[in-house]
């Protein structure tokens, strides 16, 4: 499924969602969306609707679990939380992301230096 330009890459979105849940604990979809918007300071253009297929995908992989509950303003909402394997996955992905980022930095830095 090709992602339209300007949107968040699938893998990145996964990582962001996992990190958000790690930081804030169980959260509903709206909460996750708001948090992402806050953190990214609107640098990321997220179509909030695409969050839900991503959540489902993560749930299918067993990285997060979901439960119906009641939100802060007394609405019925589905709460997502990180599972143990999700925590492991987050660690692994963070590491690989950092490695990749370091590599890119080095690469681009040197290129600029020439």
């Amino acid at each position, binding site marked *: *499924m090709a992602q339209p330009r300007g949107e968040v890459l699938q893998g990145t979105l996964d990582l962001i969602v996992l990190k958000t849940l790690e930081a804030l604990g169980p959260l*509903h*979809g*709206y909460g996750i*969306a*708001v948090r992402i918007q806050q953190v990214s300071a609107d640098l990321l253009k997220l*179509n*909030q*609707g*695409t969050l*839900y*297929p991503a959540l*489902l*995908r993560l*749930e*299918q*992989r*067993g990285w997060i679990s979901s439960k119906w509950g009641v*939100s802060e*303003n007394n*609405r*019925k*909402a*589905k709460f997502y939380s990180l599972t143990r394997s999700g925590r492991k996955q987050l660690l692994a992905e963070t590491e690989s992301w950092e490695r990749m980022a370091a590599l890119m930095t080095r690469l681009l830095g040197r290129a600029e230096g020439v």
Partner: protein
Amino acid sequence: MRGLRIFASRLLGLFGKKRRDSELEAELSAHIEALTEENMRRGMSERDARHSARREFGGLEQAKELYREQRGLPFFETLAQDLSYALRMLVRSPGFTAVTVLTLALGIGANTSLFSLINSVLLANLPVGHPEQLVVIKYTDARAQEAEDDFSYPMYEAIRDKNIVFSNVLTRAGLNFNAGYDGQSERAVGELVSGNYFETLGVQPFLGRLIGPEDDRQPGASPVAVLSYVYWQRRFGSDPSVVGRDFILNNHPIRIIGITPPQFYGTEMARNPDIRVPMMMTTVFRPVPANRMQSARHRWITVLARLKPDISRARAQASLDILYHQVLAAELQELGSSVSAHDKEQTLLSRIQLDPGNQGFAHLRGEMERPLLLMFGVTGIVLLVACANLANLLLARNAKRKQEISVRLAIGAGRRRLIRQWLTESLLLSLIGGFAGIIVAYWAKTALLDFLPANYSANLHAPMDVRVLGFALVASLVTGLLFGLAPALQLSRTKVSFVLRHQAPSIASSEKLFSLRSALIFLQVALSLPLLIGAGLFLHSLRNLRGVDTGFVKENVFLATLNPAMNGYPQERIKSLYDDVLARVRTLPSVRAASLTTSSVISGSWDQEGVKVEGYRPGPDENMSPNAAVISPGYFETLGIPFVEGRDFTEQDTAGRPKVVIINETMAHYFFGKKDPLGKKIGTSDDPKAPPDMEIIGVVKDAKYVHLWESPRRHFYTAMGQEPHLFDMTLQVRTSGDPEEIGGLVRAQVHDLDTNLPLYATTTLQVQIDNSLTQERLLTWLSSLFGLLATLLASLGLSGVVAFSVARRTREIGIRMALGAQPSDILRSVVSRMSVLVTLGIVVGLGAALELSRLLGSMLYEVKAVDPLAFVGASLLLGIVAAIAAYWPARHATQIDPVVALRHE
């Protein structure tokens, strides 16, 4: 592991759709509500807040769709959707569905039935352990083109005992028994088998025990027999207590020791022995010649061996060849000067050849391989024609669906998705057709097996096993893709604007001559014609064979064989019994002539005997073995073979009298040229020093002896009264009425002479000749059937295309008629395009048929490569059928009312 988990979760996602959808709905609307509230908190009006929330959220339906795709298994869901849609389409047009399924059922059924035969005849192994290790031992001969498989018993012993490449070597020979039990005697098919026969094949007894090496040590010492399962069932009612009891074979009490398993039939599919006895019992059951087991000159057994596990066939062949030549050289040494140096040299040129033995001796395979593969090819072409036909049908239907397609494309359906849906539809059709085809195939192969002679089909069940069903499945899928792909691709190229602009073109401008539909019509014609011509060639060949001058009168002759030698008659009694039978039969009403012979014409068996001819010196490799038969007086009268000169045998030509012989015209010309052969002498003695001793007393006209298609053969006849040893003979009775009716009377006469003497192979000469043409008749029938089927399909396709084109051009035709065009003009304009296509198809088809005709050459009798009858006849037939097929719907065009037509659409 994770993949499995995801799959399971997605699989679960297929269920509880409603609940999951409403949950998703609730979750998403909660999200939007929250966004709206947030916006309102920032001071927007409720309307603006909701609007803005929607914008931030993005496409709601898109998100839902993405979510649903992520939730379930889109492949299966789409498949289920497509299938249900396809089913609805099929149910909605039952006529189309019926025609399609019927076409497919015939096409796939024909292919599958042929494949089931091929599966059994060409692919199936012997029902024994590790058949792939078996090899058939043969030898090539300097004289014969094909390898022979008959060996002498001493040669077998040498191979068995001295080889280093086989784990076991078995031998067998066929013979027939007169089997008596409970006072009833009948002929049974028998086999002499070596003591290691069952051990080599790895066969376990069904009951009792099988023949083992201990039963095959001393000549005549082990009167035991093993019965086949089928024979035990038929003759002994599956009574297990017969094991251990005696029955009578050729007047000898023989102990039944065991029963072979049901699926075991031996080493050759076309032969089905009822009774097997140890090889060493040969001295009892085939006492003449007495030295059969010791003589290197009598080749009468066939040999099958099992390779040692790590030995290849090539290596075994090389190794065995050395041994074979050692034995041959020793044999020649022993014969000494009685064999000429030239003959010795020729003998030593012989080489061992090992053939794969996984199918045993596979004579059936040899006979049926070519016709089966040929017919398989033919059915393949029929299926191709059917595919072309169906593709055209789908194309015609597509035209009607263009509107639907345009709308679907306009609202955003993907073309890939549409192609996939149409392919699902055609695959569904082809699978239904394939299923119906399996039923057709079952019926067709049963009919085919019934058509074959009984000894062929005895072990040939052609079961619809996994391989056959797998074939049907693959054939269905390939067919579905073949006929579905082109229409689907074409349909997907439909332009979105097409329907939105206007519904259909009123003028047939888009009908090009070289469109896909035209190409398909052309293809069908070009493929059908060679099939029709092939059928014509076979038909012509069969007619030639039927009309062949046999040299004898085939009508009104009853045939039966009897073998008193099997009942233990001594020679003198055999002779007098034969005389008595003849005398009694000749007195029966409506009998015009009766006689006996050792070889009945066109029966599939014949004898040849080496001769010496007075005053004739043969060349070094000259074939001096004409066909030979021992006959009673009256033979030529019974068959209606005229004498050229001389006289027939009489009752006075007996053992004590001067030896006499009758020869045919070809033999007379061959040995005596223009000289008169009467009074000359020929001899058949093995002794090279013995002078020819039989005086030629008559010359008869040539006849066909073995096959109807043989060229004239040399043939000589000797007198029954002068033959020292008589065995089985065929009684031939010419009647003035129906030969079938005389059978009962003849049987009663023989029964009267000896109640224990069975009369077997009873038939008529006409039937015997028909049976000799089984393969030709089968090929003719099948090729005609398939040729006509292909033509029918092609013409149906043609009809459909013309009808469709007329329907499309209704408005145009209306305008033209309003402007004064005559019906004949309209007809011409509709049909002319088709006639170009059909003519083109016929021309190309003729070219292909020419190749086919060359390929068939050796299977045809006196039919030229370019047989005018077949080529012209088939082309005419196809042309006429095509013309009718095109004219029928075109007629409608001329009946169009301009007023109605202009209002059309």
